[in-house]
């Protein structure tokens, strides 16, 4: 066991873990220990975040080294999933089931009795504010609702370890706020939560503790403040899809921190560059409601430039 793992027994440990796909190395000799609370797993697309998360979730076996969750190897131990919840990145659900049926089925698979399945399903639906939509088929859910039902299935069995792969992607500002609140609350209860994202601001809104991953290696692990200032040199880009994109643009154009606004790439989208993401998201709430914002996402160019800077430093 490495000195790191021995010093701090942690719910998630990687010991010299590598994973390769044929000749491609996705994760290279990674050693780390994740403690209770939220840890942000940050990296541009293709950095190795998904591989890291899938190794922790027991969906992949390490090619070399060890990945342990709650003291047991993550691969090949299904009983671990009594204490581990995974919110996958893929926008995939059993679309023929209602939200309630979806959660009930997964609670039954978690081994609970019928009454307990019902109780946990209702609690999870209320937690992600989908109780009113419980009888609608998942296939008819909006993107934000689909993200929330995915989160609900990850936490309905009250796991100690939560692995969330891009949980805020595609959500409208209201849903984003709700889900962020849930994640923070769960972390405050002492759970170990790993949130992967390619958007620094998203992670920053959840935690100060980040794991920077690039080209399959851990570039840095620590406080997000240390890389926060770099963002000032690299304006944060947000694309918003809204029912009335022009009204949205009018509402935010005068904000001092907005560097540029452009319509596109789709007819109903606005792309905004801001030097102060915190302030931008702070003032966005009211205009977003009025303009009917349906979805917002950030390309990873911002983070990519920060990573380039870190790598060259």
């Amino acid at each position, binding site marked *: 066991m490495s000195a790191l793992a021995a010093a701090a027994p942690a719910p998630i440990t990687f010991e010299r873990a590598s994973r390769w796909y044929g000749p491609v190395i996705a994760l290279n000799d990674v050693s780390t220990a994740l403690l209770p609370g939220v840890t942000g797993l940050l990296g541009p697309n293709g950095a190795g975040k998904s591989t890291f998360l899938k190794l922790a979730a027991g969906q992949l076996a390490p090619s070399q080294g060890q990945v342990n969750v709650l003291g047991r190897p993550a691969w090949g131990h299904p009983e671990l999933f009594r204490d581990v919840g995974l919110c996958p990145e893929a926008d995939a659900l*059993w679309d023929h089931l209602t939200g309630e049926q979806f959660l009930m089925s997964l609670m039954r698979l978690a*081994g609970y009795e019928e009454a307990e399945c019902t109780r946990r399903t209702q609690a999870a639906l209320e937690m992600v504010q989908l109780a009113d939509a419980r009888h609608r088929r998942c296939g008819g859910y909006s993107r934000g609702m689909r993200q929330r039902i995915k989160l609900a299935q990850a936490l309905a069995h009250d796991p100690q370890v939560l692995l969330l792969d891009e949980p805020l992607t595609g959500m409208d500002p209201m849903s984003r706020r709700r889900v962020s609140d849930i994640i923070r609350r769960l972390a405050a209860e002492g759970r170990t939560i790993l949130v992967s994202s390619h958007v620094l601001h998203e992670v920053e809104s959840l935690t100060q503790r980040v794991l920077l991953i690039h080209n399959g290696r851990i570039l840095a692990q620590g406080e997000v403040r240390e890389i926060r200032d770099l963002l000032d040199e690299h304006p944060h880009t947000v694309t918003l899809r809204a029912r009335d994109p022009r009204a949205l643009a009018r509402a935010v154009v005068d904000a001092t921190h907005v560097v540029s606004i452009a319509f596109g790439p789709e007819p109903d989208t606005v792309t905004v560059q801001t030097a102060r993401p915190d302030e931008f998201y702070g003032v966005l709430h009211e205009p977003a409601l009025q303009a009917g914002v349906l979805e917002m996402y950030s390309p990873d160019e911002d983070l990519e430039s920060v990573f380039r800077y870190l790598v060259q430093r």
Partner: protein
Amino acid sequence: MSAATAAAADPVAAAPPRPGPVPFLRGARVVFDLSLEAMLWSRRSVFMGLLLVVPLLFAILYRVLLAAHAPVRITPALFFGGMFGSYYIWFALPLTALFYATALVADEVEAKTITYLLTRPVRRTSILLGKFAAYLGTTLALVLPSVVLTFFVLMTRQGRRGLALGAPDLVRDLAVAALALLAYGALFTFVGVLLRWPLITGLLFLYGWEWLSILPGWAPRLTIRAWLTSMHHHTVVGEGLSQGVVQTLPVVPGLITLGTSSLLFLALAAWIFSRRQYVLDQ
């Protein structure tokens, strides 16, 4: 440091122990319930339903011709025997098994919903067993009514006496149909978890390998079709298509062979499914 102090310092160690995986049969039952509805009401079932309506349509046509006093020489029993031996055993049953069993895991992988099944405290063998049971439930629900209705339409020509006379053959044919779905299903489940594009391999097996059944000597014993055809034995269908070209093999070794091969293929499928990293296929 004492054990108590260590436990207090480590929230993971302090957590109460939890039980192991969900019991095998209970997990399989939940997967069965979950998969059965999805399979029954899938587009695949509509297609297979159409395929299984064809013998019924032929049976109705036969009765119409008889009613119109057309010169039909074949008896209802012979017609039913020929239909079961040629259409069901040679075509509909293997194709039904192929389309459903190869998709048991592949559909979940393609839809990326396999993650939900594989991140529960359920053994993978339990998941596969539940899915296979749902496959059997679905295909039996489609095939058996088709066989029974076809039989009923044909044999009521001779009134109650016809039904009573043909009943033992019907029971035997229903059992052969169930055995066919089990044997082909187990094989195609194995192919489905082993290969990324199992449908092509399955079709090659059905329309290549299975033709060994018409060869003389030992070769037919290497096919599923020859054993099934031998079990489907209508005394009145001695000159039927399948009976004419396939040698008759003994029934008991056939039952043992098909039963053993089904168990073997299911065990292999479960072994592969337990070890495969499906996120690589997504």
